[in-house]
């Protein structure tokens, strides 16, 4: 029985890891998965807690999906960590692959309280008012936290790393194989793999795009973080899970209520194998005692016990299962301070804040802060976004990139549109359908005509038509929304002019502009209208359309009607 339990746990781990990877693969056009591709993120109670506390509102889709793991943890303790968590499984596998054995089992509990301080720090970041927004329903201004949970939530971290690092590497490798190993025409290879993608149905890992591997700006940062987490296994097995993971801390806290515990019978001869084999050092010097909030339910102890003295039992026993946290008061205060600093210092750095608007506060550095369609106002967006990278994974043009400096430090890794990488292509609404926290709210392709992300403007000093008088209005050719019109020069040659009332800032003009490297037409965030509701934005668009048909009621005859003529 005993080793069966361990086998079952390993099978469970592999199944849940496979499920994670399959859903990750499914997060691609045409998004045909019957199960939400962001299931693991939605099921994460820490993310639900973070959204509720920091946004001061309940995000119901997250709550419902987070319920099973919450209940599971209340019943059985941290079994999520041992049986389900794809991050834990990845660490297990990578520790095995790199033969990281954790040289200090004797110091098993040396750092274990750290994760509770991390969790406390995170809670502080959610709680303290970092910005304000107008609550349109309540008609008042309320505060919003700035959750730092994205930094260390294991599911967000793993999804993000898979997108920023895994995807480009797989695609790059596929492209290289075709180029060097085979003598076929490159395109034939691509085509074959499109066939493969089709054969696999909707499970596309993007091999069809293998000739143009995805690109993500912060890939190396994500890799170093994951690499660091795994490397810590050299010191202690599952160092991350036992000492750092805030989700593990939260579930450990919930597990205090669990009626299930490990029981050691009198057959125990204190051989200490369970102490040495415990993945998380939950058993200290006395095999008859273990720490409830530390145990991840891997049941290795049951499997390795030569006396078969360990079993599961129902009923609370405070002597066998020690549940107290024994947090150090000074360190708790330190964690609160650190959480405070984690909000204030990023916000106070890298670009001053505009303070005369309450809802869509952009920084002075945010000229190129172009958010995906459907995004919440900037204040809420930065709070709600957990940097999981699902939107970037699903984005078919790769235009969604992790923000580097656009939104300040507090927006690091959040999605921004980078038009020179690709356009936010008009007939696409995928990112709104995969965001687990609704930082990007679902939107339709039709709504994209009035979801104003930014505005394109022509740099007349480098534009081929404006500066050099040659034939080029490829921006106008490509514009999906008919927002670019032409202003003829004295010889009748067309020059592009943007109608800022129609332009939504999708960036296709910037993407196609032949002026290298930056393009002579560029989208900036000046047209960002997220502070308006969708119906208000639609009204603006409809009015602009109407003025186009009937002429503006505000223009007099003595002024040039064409904005480009002046």
């Amino acid at each position: 029985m005993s080793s069966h339990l361990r086998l079952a746990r390993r099978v469970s781990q592999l199944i849940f890891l496979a499920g994670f990877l399959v859903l990750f693969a499914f997060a691609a056009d045409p998004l045909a998965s019957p199960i939400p591709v962001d299931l693991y993120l939605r099921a994460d109670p820490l993310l639900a807690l973070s959204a509720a506390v920091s946004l001061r509102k309940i995000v119901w889709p997250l709550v419902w999906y987070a319920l099973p793991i919450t209940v599971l943890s209340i019943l059985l303790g941290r079994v999520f960590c041992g049986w389900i968590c794809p991050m834990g499984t990845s660490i297990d596998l990578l520790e095995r692959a790199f033969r990281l054995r954790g040289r200090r089992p004797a110091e098993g509990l040396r750092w274990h309280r750290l994760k509770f301080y991390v969790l406390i720090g995170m809670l502080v970041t959610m709680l303290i008012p970092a910005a304000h927004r107008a609550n349109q329903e309540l008609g008042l201004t309320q505060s919003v936290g700035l959750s730092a949970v994205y930094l260390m939530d294991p599911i967000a971290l793993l999804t993000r790393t898979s997108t920023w690092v895994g995807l480009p590497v797989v695609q790059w490798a596929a492209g290289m194989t075709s180029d060097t190993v085979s003598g076929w025409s490159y395109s034939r290879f691509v085509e074959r793999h499109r066939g493969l993608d089709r054969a696999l149905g909707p499970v596309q890992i993007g091999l069809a795009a293998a000739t143009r591997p995805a690109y993500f700006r912060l890939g190396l940062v994500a890799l170093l973080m994951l690499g660091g987490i795994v490397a810590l296994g050299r010191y202690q097995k599952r160092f991350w899970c036992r000492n750092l993971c805030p989700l593990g801390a939260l579930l450990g806290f919930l597990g205090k209520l669990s009626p299930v515990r490990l029981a050691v019978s009198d057959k125990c001869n204190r051989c200490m194998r369970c102490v040495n084999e415990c993945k998380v050092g939950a058993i200290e010097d006395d095999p008859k005692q273990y720490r409830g909030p530390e145990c991840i339910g891997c049941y290795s102890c049951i499997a390795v016990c030569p006396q078969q003295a360990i079993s599961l039992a129902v009923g609370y026993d405070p002597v066998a299962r020690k549940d107290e946290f024994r947090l150090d008061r000074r360190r708790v205060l330190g964690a609160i301070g650190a959480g405070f600093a984690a909000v204030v210092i990023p916000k106070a750095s890298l670009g001053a804040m505009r303070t005369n608007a309450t809802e869509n506060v952009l920084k002075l550095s945010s000229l190129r802060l172009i958010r995906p369609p459907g995004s919440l106002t900037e204040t809420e967006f930065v709070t709600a976004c957990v940097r999981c990278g699902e939107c970037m994974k699903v984005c078919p043009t790769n235009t969604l990139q992790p923000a580097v400096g656009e939104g300040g430090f507090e927006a690091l890794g959040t999605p921004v549109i980078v038009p020179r990488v690709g356009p936010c292509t008009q007939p696409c609404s995928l990112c709104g359908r995969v965001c687990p926290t609704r930082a990007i709210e679902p939107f339709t392709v039709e709504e994209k005509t009035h979801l104003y992300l930014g505005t394109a403007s022509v740099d007349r000093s480098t534009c081929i038509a404006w500066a050099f008088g040659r034939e080029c209005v490829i921006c106008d050719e490509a514009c999906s929304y008919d927002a670019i019109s032409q202003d003829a020069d004295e010889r009748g040659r067309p020059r592009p002019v943007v109608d800022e009332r129609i332009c939504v800032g999708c960036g296709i003009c910037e993407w196609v502009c032949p002026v290298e490297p930056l393009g002579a037409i560029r989208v900036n965030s000046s047209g960002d209208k997220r502070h308006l509701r969708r119906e208000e934005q639609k009204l603006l668009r409809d009015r602009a359309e109407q003025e186009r048909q009937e002429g503006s009621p505000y223009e007099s005859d003595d002024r040039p009607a064409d904005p480009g003529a002046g």
Partner: protein
Amino acid sequence: MDSNLTRREFLKRAAAAGVAATGLGGLAGLDGAVAEAASTPTIAVASKKDPAALVRAAVGALGGMGKFVKKGDVVFVKPNMGWARKFDQAATTNPGVVAEVVRLCRAAGAREVRVMDHAVDRPDSLLLRMNGIEEAVKKVGGRTSFASSSALYERVSLPRGKALSSVDVMRDLRRADVFINVPIAKVHNSTRLTLGIKNMLGIVWDRGAFHRSSSLDQAMVDLVARIRPHLTILDAVRILLTNGPKGPGRTEDRRIVVAGTDPVAVDAYGVSLFGMKAAQIGHIKLAAAAGLGEIDLKRIKVKDV
């Protein structure tokens, strides 16, 4: 256009093409312009049928696809499928037209028919789903793909180019035996109209180089002077009258397909569909002046079918 075409071989072929040219010049290909211009070009204009029948009639009037495609040939077909639009918006070539071209090639014994384009819009998969070409082509035994990587192109020098000195052309086209250009007739906000010659921009990697050059019109002429389609089949089943080339704009059903080996002649006829004169369209005028074909409709033999 084998992969291993040597200069000597090329010269031989060009000479043979010159001698054999009948105005339908099946072997025209690279630099075939010289042979072409001398005689009166023939174009076929089919009207008032469904798209497939239009193609059949027009190609039939030129002597059938067997005249251009030999058994075992690899055929490169270049429709316009570079916009994220549905085909009924007339921004991309009618899938029925493209599929019939592919079917005729296969019936003539083509070993492989590759339908390719270099899209402006992204992503490729979505474009293919929207314009319906891939689905239609697959049914008749052709293959569709986009060449969205520079690795799929090879450098072709243009020693006689006036605006460009070299251009990167799709490798699949360079290695095909037959090149069939299948444009759709649309208005164009930069070149006024886009027909066969303008459609050729989709075989190059760096389209921007054309815009950056001293003249977009001349750059296109430089390209066609070097890479000349064996056959141009112009889709005017439904034409785009405003807000081209991408639309959405006003469309008009004309139910016409024009086919011919002289790209300038086909375009000249295409211009007339919009009530304009070919000499008004800069690149067509320049192409005629460069001796690439006949622009004067009076000197073109039009077979109405």
